């Protein structure tokens, strides 16, 4: 199997990753919230794709491997969006302060 792999130009990919890293560091320095989000998350996704496709050889794998990856990402999404409303919206303090505070309870309901 492995002998059938064509090898990507690893150095070229590495340079691209460095450029993207520089962009993701520089982006937030401009202090524009939208741009910060794009440079942080957008570039991270592109970098992850480059690493997975080239260094993890997904580019050369069968479609089933991509399918498995996609399913894993979907599972992550399902879990994240199922849990986020409970965990992220409350700053973790609802168990301490919220119960005594009626308005807080009403707000949550």
């Amino acid at each position, binding site marked *: 199997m492995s002998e059938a792999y064509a090898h990507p130009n690893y150095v070229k990919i590495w340079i691209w990753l460095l450029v993207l890293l520089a962009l993701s560091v520089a982006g937030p320095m401009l202090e524009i919230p939208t741009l910060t989000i794009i440079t942080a998350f957008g570039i991270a996704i592109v970098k992850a794709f480059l690493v997975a496709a080239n260094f993890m050889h997904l580019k050369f794998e069968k479609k089933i491997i991509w399918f498995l990856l996609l*399913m894993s990402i979907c*599972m992550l999404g399902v*879990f994240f969006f*199922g*849990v986020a409303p*409970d965990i992220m919206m409350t700053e973790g303090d*609802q168990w301490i302060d919220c119960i005594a505070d009626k308005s807080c309870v009403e707000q949550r309901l």
Partner: protein
Amino acid sequence: MSQAATAVQTDTNAEHHEELSFLYKYILPTDHKIIAMQYIFTGMIMAVIGGYFAYAFRMQLAFPGELVPLYGLVGPGEYNMLVTNHGTIMIFWVAMPVLIAGFGNYIIPLMIGCDDMVFPRLNRLSYQIFLASTLVLILSFFVKGGGFGGAWTAYPPLSSVAEYSLTDWGASLWVLAVALEFVSFLLGGINFVTTTMNARAPGMKMMDIPIAVWFIVLAVILFMASVGPLIAGAVMLFMDQRIGTSFFLPSGGGDPLLWQHLFWFFGHPEVYVVLLPTLGIVADIITVFSRKKLFGYKTVLYTAFATGGLSFVVWAHHQFIAGIDPRMANVFVVTTVLISIPLAEMMFSYIATLYGGSIELKTPMLWALSFIAAFLIGGVTGIYLGASALDVYFHDSYFVLAHFHYTFFPITIIGMFAAITFWFPKMFGRMMNDTLGKIHFWGTFIPFNCIFLPLFFLGLAGQHRRIYNYNHFPDLATQELQNIRIFATVSLIVMLCFQLVFIYNFFVSMFKGKKAPDNPWNANTLEWSTPSPPPHGNFKTLPTVYRGAYEYSVPGREMDYWPQNEPPEES
């Protein structure tokens, strides 16, 4: 598979499967059949421990504060330990090792026509890690403070703070044991999937694979896809317990709900992880003993795919009243009700398979039929609990407990007995006594219903679970309710006594039973084409497959079965 189809019959490597020394045959085996028996016997021993725990705490419920014969006094802490470890053992140390690891190991290579698992040493390692996890769990009963008492769901902060659970090291050892067990099943799962996908007999296409094998493979895929969050959660819980982190502790800014999500994201698919193997085993048994083709092979398979997929999006129905976002509750009600559709469809397929068949009520068939009947009650009562409005009342009541046992008892115990009585002749080369088998069946199935049907009524009456003495609650301390508790407990004792019949039948038949022919049930699948018990290497000549697994009562054929490996007649 085209590769499989074009491959030619091969002499098995009989010369590579020479007789081994006792050490390598039974203590450090790589033969899947011996490993399977190691799992099954370990699981059965653990079932005895789990059953003993159930006896002890049921006696406390029926006769609170009195000495329990063969146990002693059950205090509140001990009661918690008993219920926690009963649940843990029965799910993780009985259902999974027996149904998935045990029978998966035994039947997959035999049913797909290969000589062993593709990774035999990994298989051995898997059992050894499982054995280590078993020893760690048993060890936890004897450390200071006793075994873990924070329920099998291990909700923090109860499970993460020793002052709350009163089982300091017991809790940590419990987490360690569960984590080790999951590592073991991950290794086993890799083996099952790889073997089934790559080592099938020549000619066996995907749609020729017996349902029992398909379902075990689907079960391990579900397990592997769902267990990650729980292992991560277990590590965090362990750190909360031992090094003072606060992932789940509100006092340190953590969130106990996060554990519940991590646990149930695994915990609900886990229901289907143990359910699917039993469903597969039952499918194979009902076709053999009704001499009929499985009704809708592909439909049954696709319903299992649908069930598996949906099982990942129903987990929060366990948390409706735990303080989750109410909007999410709506979503999970819909998905929970949805999941009943494919399962109902599968049950209809099974019933349609029975319709018009030449049904023979041998012991394995009785178990298979009783599975369908009991599991339907479990499934239907699950729909009530899946509705968040009803769950507000039912949550943590004995209604949940009765529902749960109407699903898990058929899955674990009935499924296990169905499989053992069906494959016993193949495993040991001898027949079990059918009359004793039937006595054991009725002596188990009737008391099972007598234990758990009344618990629905207790739940409806408002009886909460995890209370060790109901005399402390005036509303629940009435004589009427107590009578029901006593009835359930006596039924349990009757059921446990009837297990002696099984143990006698099992061991006596193993050594003195009637010699079993290669194919005592006139079944089609490949394991019946090899001697009973199969030799090391399974087949003298690797079989070639010509058809699906369920060609029973084919018109125009003299015999009412058509083995998968029998060459087609020349026309």
